[in-house]
């Protein structure tokens, strides 16, 4: 009796110590590597000053230029890439979501395979995806759209699949009991139930896609990334500043609107 009550805390304490030790080892390893290789460039302070000076005096002339090679056009393109990418993935991911949902497949194996497939898509970096699509359709926004559309399937498929798993089937059963056919049950019982959540997730993904679209241009897949990387490489900090400001403003506005809509949806 005494032994039994003593044993559990001991095991627990042992476990806690092991966890603490593991964490300690990880940090020791991480920090030794950090300090061994840590060195600041002697020009770091100078560079930081130059960057700060440039950013505090943004190149306002770049916002809108007659030729169309300006900030507003690039931002609009970024927005378009995000819209289309999200749109494509929201449609394409639906069958994948059903594949990965546990309650839609008779065997656990099938849904697990679907989940692994979706996480494989999620891990495949967007930038590489963009490079692949650039090979297919050439440099430009279309490659960005395809890359985002493909990559977002991973996340949306996972989220949609989870909301299918959480679904309440009583309405569908009731309809079936009244003699509704498969299409009717799908349309009147399942779709209304999952739709708000689907839209909410799609909007959430859209917020992320806007940020992704902003960097896809770094490899040539359209949007604001390309002028940004040019400005960075040319050390034109005033231009970097104005582009950064543009991205911040656009993302904030989109987040705000999308947040309001999502609150009303769910």
């Amino acid at each position, binding site marked *: 009796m005494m032994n039994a009550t003593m044993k559990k805390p001991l095991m627990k304490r042992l476990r806690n110590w092991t966890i603490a030790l593991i964490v300690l080892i*990880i*940090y020791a*390893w*991480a*920090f030794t*590597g*950090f300090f061994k*290789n840590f*060195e*600041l*460039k002697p020009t*770091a302070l100078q*560079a*930081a000053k130059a*960057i700060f000076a440039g950013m505090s005096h943004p190149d306002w002339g770049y916002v809108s230029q007659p030729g169309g090679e300006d900030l507003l056009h690039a931002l*609009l*393109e970024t*927005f*378009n*890439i995000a*819209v*289309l990418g999200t*749109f494509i993935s929201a449609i394409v991911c639906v069958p994948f979501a059903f594949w990965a949902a546990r309650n839609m497949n008779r065997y656990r194996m099938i849904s697990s395979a679907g989940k692994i497939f979706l*996480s*494989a898509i999620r*891990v*495949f*970096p967007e*930038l*590489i995806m963009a*490079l*692949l*699509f650039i*090979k*297919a*359709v*050439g440099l*430009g*926004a*279309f490659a*960005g*759209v*395809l890359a985002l559309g493909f990559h977002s399937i991973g996340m949306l498929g996972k989220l949609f699949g989870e909301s299918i798993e959480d679904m309440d089937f009583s309405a569908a059963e009731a309809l079936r009991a009244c003699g509704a056919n498969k299409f009717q049950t799908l349309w009147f019982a399942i779709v209304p139930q999952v739709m708000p959540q689907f839209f909410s997730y799609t909007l959430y993904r859209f917020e992320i896609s806007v*940020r*992704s679209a*902003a*960097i896809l241009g*770094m*490899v040539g897949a*359209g949007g604001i990334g390309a002028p*940004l*990387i040019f400005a*960075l490489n040319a050390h034109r900090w005033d231009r*970097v500043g104005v582009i*950064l400001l543009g*991205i*911040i403003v656009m*993302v*904030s506005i989109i*987040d705000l609107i999308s947040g309001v809509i999502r609150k009303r949806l769910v």
Partner: protein
Amino acid sequence: MNLAKRRVAKLKLSLIILFFILIIWSASKQTGVSLVELFSNLSNMGALLVQMFPPDWSYFNYVTSAMLETIRMAVLGTTFGGIAAIPFALFASRNIVKTGWIAVPFRFVMNLIRTIPELLLAALFVPIFGIGFVSGIFALAVFSFGVIAKLAYESIEAIDNGPLEAMTAVGANKVQWIFLGVIPQVVAPYMSYFLYCFEINVRAATILGYVGAGGIGLYLSRTLGFLQYDRVMSIILYTFVVVLIIDGLSNRIREKLI
């Protein structure tokens, strides 16, 4: 009455759908979407994919140290960001700092930081800290700071007020109040957000090298530049395995925490 209401609702819905179609249409027009082009050139992409197989298995060994550096970047970046997030999260919570306007600037900074993508932060830090993993760590730290601080202040605002009131009643000062009343209630969610952010950072760290911020991304951009697609594939596979393992571990710990 009811009929009119329904008619308005219907009109609203069709207007929303119309607006939506308009956006999609104009976006596809401006980005030059063309399915014909995609399908006629799909063979190019296929050829590239064929070049990726079989992966160069011997390359795994070669990039292991870069992979470890990537994980190290994620660990340190998340840690620095997570620690910096604690005071910000406390100041941004309206139930901790009772003066209403104090939370506003803190929340503003958090929201501002979260709008900037990580790769962009890395690209900004590379000219300052130089090419290498230090820039990556700082980029990840700034990003993690934004994410963790936001999630943490939301969970601080949701804590149970009972213990806090009890402590005030028996005369605890502000420091005791925070350390003994607030923090014990948010440790578990904080750890969970920390791990969640770590998962994101591992994924992000794998591409930061693309702009020169250290880790395995450097090899990714190098092998892509030399058109060694079999090696690209082995890097992708390696990343996949590592991310899968880390996600799995972190998910299990997070499930236990909550």
